[in-house]
């Protein structure tokens, strides 16, 4: 009885162990397969996975922007960004300065609709009215930082052609290396980049690093995403996001750090939040 029980136990334990072994063996067998499958994903498919990971209906981001110049002098600004994305990928965003006091209330409203030229409005509290600014200003640096207006916007798959390079490890993560080329001259002019090289994590599908190149093939800037952890609030809490972005500007010998204090995804922000009316009411 005891023996049988033992035997049963042993059998059950053995089965359990066998299951574990089979599962582990499967995993071992499957890992290269999965890895191979991921390696076989086209550049476009990788970016689609990234898009899927990044896609949310709306988001609220509280962040601090630190600009450090070549001499180490630091400028700190507090920002709040709200974004809304429709089902057909049109995108609205409202970005507002919270500090220091002399720039508080300055806001930027971007409305990106398909192929049409974007509507971009800048609100300066001193003027008490919003001003339409050119879409071409997308390649200008945003409020003295090393991020251009374009850098602050979501990746537009239609606007780029992607190629895949051999995978690379980055900080212990296997990354798909993708090169993004603007599909049109207009897009190239607007962004100011001849190409971008992206390191996309094959675990989280987040872009961990981006290098920006100009038309001479020179590396202008490098963006690194760190402090990746789940978002704490909103209906999409739990989604992974980088909470720190570092943009090193090799050309200007400066760097800008965006440190996210809080991120909320899918909070139910209404589309009506992204209007000139809202922009002009800091």
């Amino acid at each position, binding site marked *: 009885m005891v023996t049988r029980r033992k035997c049963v136990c042993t059998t059950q334990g053995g089965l359990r162990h066998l299951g574990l072994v089979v599962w582990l063996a499967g995993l071992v067998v499957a890992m290269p397969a999965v890895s191979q499958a991921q390696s076989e994903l086209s550049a476009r498919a990788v970016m689609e996975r990234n898009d899927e990971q990044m896609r949310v209906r709306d988001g609220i981001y509280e962040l601090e922007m630190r600009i450090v110049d070549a001499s180490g002098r630091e400028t700190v600004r507090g920002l709040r960004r709200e974004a809304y994305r429709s089902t057909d990928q049109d995108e609205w965003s409202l970005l507002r300065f919270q500090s220091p*006091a002399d720039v508080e209330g300055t806001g930027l409203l971007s409305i990106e609709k398909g192929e049409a030229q974007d509507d971009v409005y800048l609100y300066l509290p001193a003027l008490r009215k919003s001003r*339409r600014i050119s879409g071409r200003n997308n390649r200008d640096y945003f409020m003295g930082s090393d991020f251009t207006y374009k850098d602050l916007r979501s990746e537009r798959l239609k606007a780029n052609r992607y190629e895949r390079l051999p995978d690379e490890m980055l900080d212990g993560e296997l990354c798909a290396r993708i090169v993004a080329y603007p599909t049109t001259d207009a897009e190239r002019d607007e962004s100011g980049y001849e190409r971008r090289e992206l390191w996309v994590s094959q675990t989280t599908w987040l872009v961990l690093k981006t290098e920006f190149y100009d038309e001479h093939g020179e590396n202008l800037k490098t963006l690194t995403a760190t402090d990746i952890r789940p978002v704490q609030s909103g209906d999409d809490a739990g989604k992974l996001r980088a909470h720190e972005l570092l943009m090193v500007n090799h050309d200007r010998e400066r760097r800008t750090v965006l440190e996210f204090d809080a991120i909320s995804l899918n909070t139910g922000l209404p589309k009506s939040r992204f*209007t000139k009316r809202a922009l002009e009411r800091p």
Partner: protein
Amino acid sequence: MRRRPAGERPRRGRACLVLAIAGAMLGERPAWAAETDLDLDLVARVYSYAHDSEADSVRVGGTLRAEPRIGVAWPSLRMQLAAVVRADNLGYVRTEKLLDAAGDDDVRRSIDYGESFVEWDRGSWSLRAGKLLFAWGTADSVNPVDILNPRDYTDIVEFEKVPVDAVALTHFGEWVTVTGAVLPGFQPSRLPSPRTRFFPPPPPRVSVGPVELPVELALVSARRTRPDTSSTRVPVALKLDGSLRGVDWFGSYYQGATRDGLIDASTRLSPDARRVISEVRRVFPRQRVFGAGLATFFGPFGVRAEAAYFKDLERQGDDYVQLVFGGDRRWSDLIGDVDLGVNLQYALDRTRDRGRIVNQTPAVMSRVFSDNVLLRVDLEFNPDTSALLEATMNVDDSDGFGKFEIVTRIRGAWQVAVGCDLFFGSSDGFFSQFQRNDRFFVRVESAF
């Protein structure tokens, strides 16, 4: 930075207050909570007037300006109360008696309302009442249709809008935003007082036949020439604006007395025939002003235009048109890390028959608008340091005004600016008459 819940609006100086009674009356959710916002803007300017240096003194002037604001907001209701506290000395002052109000000095100490209002929002409607500031028009630098608020021209270089008593109702439609405003009472713009340096001096002597006689200025108080503001003549304004295919547009209408007023001058001999008395009064004719404007961009160039037709309701033939158009362009990293912005505007004033407009000839705005080129160049060296050049030149009179300043952030929101204001031209144009006011300045400002 303090970590905040994502839904909270992280505004500096903001604290949550419990205003249970008001909240309950409003029936809002949360019913008892309001947010308060406390702000303070400080500006101190010191001027040294280049043409007033003497052996033992340097003529200086200064301005201290503080604007505290308190705002309270519920989800649909917002209130703001603001004051402008200032002390100016823009007169002739020796350094050793900067704040001495004796003699030619003119020290003004004042407390005025800043923008103060109650605003109620419900759906696509917004109602705002109180001391309001309006910002109408699409052009840069000068907006012909932006005439709802009076101005304080005490210092004509640093002039500012004055909040006006008004009630404004706005409907935000999907395609068109409509704003209607009623502006009861009458507040004229404030002109430089005769004892201050921005008051244009009259000629000391005039020829009367074969002899030259001294001129005595007799100013008639604006209070005596105030327009009728009875209920049937309350100023009203309407504006429609929207965007269509990448073009922002607006149309506007205003009916009421002009805030700046026109200068009506008449001369007569004194009873003893030894002086010429020049009686100057400001008149505030009622006008209808029809405005329209567009703003868009072509590639990297921003383009803006704005026009206003002023129809005088009291004098036939005193109608005129003011038009401003121009463009702007911004370059990043033009030279090294320096960003450059250039804004060029052209302003002109056209009348059907200028000869018949007796009151318009010396009017400030007519001279300012008459064929002027306005240029603004700003250079951003880094996030904390920038330079600004502004110039206005009157093509007809070949005179103008230029301003140059370098601004740097010293700590937090504290900024220091140094620069100069220069008037130029050799004719008797509007700007050249102020040449004695060429000045260097230091400005320190902050916000809390």
